């Protein structure tokens, strides 16, 4: 009975996911698309739970529900205010090349032209059909689970995913930290940050909520980091939660962001990659190879790397949310 109910749950969930994704991509109103995308993230977290992946669900809850939604909403408001400003038209500027419809286009996308319908549909159907066929005919395999299980005792931690991320496949994690840092460098190369478009808080509820929530979020983030060595949790999830807490702080005082001092900020942003690389090179010099640890030292080294990675990921996510170098920092 409960097997059948789980199947019903899966089917309802997947129909909802596909429907939300479809309506999101078919929206002409961008705000509606963004709200639907936030809903999509929530349903996705439930799907990860059903696929026995609580770690992914944790990351999706922090990133999908929190960070991406806020990021998209702020971006829409930025686009709107840019177009409003251009439309207001300073007299000494030439007329706007975007034309009179620019404001309409800022937050609306007209329905696509009919001529792209058939090619796009054909292409998507072929790709999707090929993928579905391949997946249905794929033979069942055990995967790498037994291999990981066999080596758990030399990994230094008790949670298989943390062991894979920070020991067995440390390359992935190291390069991933580097990519996150490069994304931030890319955003910073676009110039100094613009003020977040923000209106005054209506009443005392917002500051009060933030005052209560941010400390709880920080404690939760540290707890998730600590839990990572033996249960679902770890550096990515903790970094995402702390990053969301930082975004809450940014949203609390968007008009006058406290300027982070330049060198500690940069040090914190690079800490994850730098420490990971340093420990990896030491591993190369004393024996076990690049990004390998001596088994006796694995646990403390993993903890040190995780703390640094959490700090870097959290800081980078906040910096990416602000988008742009801190002011007065480019000389």
């Amino acid at each position, binding site marked *: 009975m*409960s097997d059948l*109910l*789980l199947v019903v*749950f899966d089917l*309802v*969930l997947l129909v*909802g996911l596909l*429907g939300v994704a479809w*309506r999101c991509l078919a929206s002409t109103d961008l*705000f*509606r698309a963004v*709200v*639907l995308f*936030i*809903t999509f993230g*929530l*349903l996705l*977290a*439930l799907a990860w*739970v059903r696929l*026995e992946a*609580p770690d992914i*669900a*944790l990351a999706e*809850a*922090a990133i999908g*529900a929190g*960070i991406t*939604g*806020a990021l998209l*909403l*702020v971006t829409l408001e930025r686009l709107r*205010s*840019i177009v*409003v*400003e251009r439309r207001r038209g300073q007299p000494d500027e030439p007329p706007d090349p975007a034309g009179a419809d620019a404001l309409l286009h800022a937050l609306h996308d007209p329905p696509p032209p009919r001529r792209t319908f058939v090619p796009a549909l054909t292409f998507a159907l072929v790709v999707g059909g090929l993928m579905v066929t391949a997946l249905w005919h794929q033979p069942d395999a055990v995967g790498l689970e037994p291999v990981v299980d066999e080596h758990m005792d030399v990994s230094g931690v008790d949670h298989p995913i943390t062991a894979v991320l920070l020991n067995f496949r440390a390359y992935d994690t190291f390069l991933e930290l580097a990519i996150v840092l490069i994304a931030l460098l890319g955003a910073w190369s676009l110039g100094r940050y*613009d*003020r*977040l*478009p*923000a*209106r*005054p*808080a*209506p009443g005392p509820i*917002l500051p009060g*909520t933030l005052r209560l929530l941010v400390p709880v*979020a920080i404690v*939760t983030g540290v707890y998730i980091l600590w839990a990572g060595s033996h*249960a*679902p*949790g770890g550096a990515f*999830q903790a970094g995402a*939660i702390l990053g*969301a807490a930082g*975004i*809450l702080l940014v*949203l609390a005082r968007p008009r006058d962001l406290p300027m982070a001092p330049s060198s500690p900020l940069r040090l914190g942003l690079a800490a994850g990659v730098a420490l990971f690389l340093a420990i990896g090179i030491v591993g190369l010099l004393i024996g076990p190879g690049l990004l390998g640890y001596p088994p006796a030292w694995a646990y403390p080294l993993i903890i040190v790397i995780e703390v640094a990675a959490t700090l870097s990921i959290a800081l980078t996510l906040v910096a990416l949310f602000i988008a742009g170098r801190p*002011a*007065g920092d480019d000389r």
Partner: protein
Amino acid sequence: MTTFYLVAAIFLLATILLGLIRVLRGPGSGDRMLAAQLFGTTGVTILLLLSMTLETPALVDVALVFALLAVVAAVAFVRQHGLPEPSGTPIHQRHGQKKDPDDDR
């Protein structure tokens, strides 16, 4: 008991799908955002029910994170759609540029 939890979870999931009507129809931005926030609350409940059904205690942590961070999008929304802009405020200003043009160099 497991069956009851599962039926409740399916029911809550169905209410999310029903609530999507409010997101799709609107009419206002506030209606859409409020519906999405309610989905967050429902999602926390579904996660807790699933944690009982699937006997995965770690899902309680997921529900906790959800409950905490669903507010981030709401705060971002309130910041932008809250009160009308006070008159005379430049909506969009490069940081510090208007105040001190020499700051750049």
